[in-house]
């Protein structure tokens, strides 16, 4: 990606309204959609780390749950919908849809800077996940969870519906043709 394209994507996120950015930062889960081999959409609840200064979202999946990664390696088009405010502490937030291309690294990571950021957000927001690495039995049962692939999303287009009202025409930022 050129420096200019990188700057444009960073700018797209940083220029979103404050209430939209709060959703991207504070929502506990979002709905990730990837495209399966037959072209149909498959949607998964996931946690995303919002990194506007880097112009991206950071996601991760354990290699034992790698179907979405297989999809992205075949077709990078994806979307993230932020529509469930449970746990976010936000009142009447907008619902936000982000479209873009996902990139999956080849390396199976167990502990690196991206995974450190990812696990830290999970530990703070999902206290039970702190127990996975704590005891010998947890480490035995959950070892698969700590062998992970990193997914990054460079957003191309962002839609949002004020107060989560999907009966309204969404606001949109980004080119109408993201292909």
């Amino acid at each position, binding site marked *: 990606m050129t420096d200019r394209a990188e700057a444009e994507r960073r700018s797209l996120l940083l220029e979103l309204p404050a209430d939209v950015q709060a959703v991207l930062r504070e929502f506990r889960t979002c709905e990730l*959609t990837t495209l399966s081999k037959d072209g149909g959409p498959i949607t998964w*609840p996931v946690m995303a780390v919002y990194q506007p200064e880097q112009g991206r979202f950071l996601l991760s999946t354990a290699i*034992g749950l790698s179907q979405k990664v297989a999809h992205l390696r075949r077709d990078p088009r994806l979307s993230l919908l932020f529509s*469930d405010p449970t746990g976010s502490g936000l009142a009447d937030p907008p619902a936000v849809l982000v*479209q873009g291309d996902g990139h999956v690294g080849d390396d199976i990571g167990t502990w690196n800077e991206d995974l450190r950021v990812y696990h830290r957000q999970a*530990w703070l927001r999902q206290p039970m996940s702190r127990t996975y690495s704590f005891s010998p039995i947890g480490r035995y*049962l959950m070892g698969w969870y700590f*062998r992970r692939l990193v997914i990054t999303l460079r957003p191309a287009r962002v839609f949002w519906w004020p107060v989560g009202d999907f*009966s309204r025409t*969404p606001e949109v930022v980004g080119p109408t043709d993201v292909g």
Partner: protein
Amino acid sequence: MWDELLKQLRRYESAVITGLGDDGYPFSWRCTPHPDQMQKVLRIDVPPGAPVTPGPAGLLCHRHDERMWNQRSFLVRGRLSSAGGWAFVPERLIPGEGARGLLGTLSILRKARRAAREYLQRRGIPPPPIPWAAINEDKAQLLREK
């Protein structure tokens, strides 16, 4: 499948519907599906101006508590139809987390362990060692800072 779908659907206030736009990118929104018992489809509202087209689609219901626990979900593959108003035509229900109780959760964990092992075997990669001490130290530091 239809009866099981209605049983599952009753446990949620709304669902996430995803279709495809003209450019092939997925487009998702949340709505309350209304079962049409005669046609065995779910009648849905589509946001005005949504760039979705009739064709492949999915429906996801999920929820979690304030601490991202007690997760429940299920997925339905199907298609969007615009004939006679927008509808989601269900084709295949895929149970998710919590859908089959504790045994279902244990089954998901067992499958994930096996899938991880197979992922490595297919690529001829030995299981990368996990630095448990570093992970637990960083977690402890984070919680001290909190």
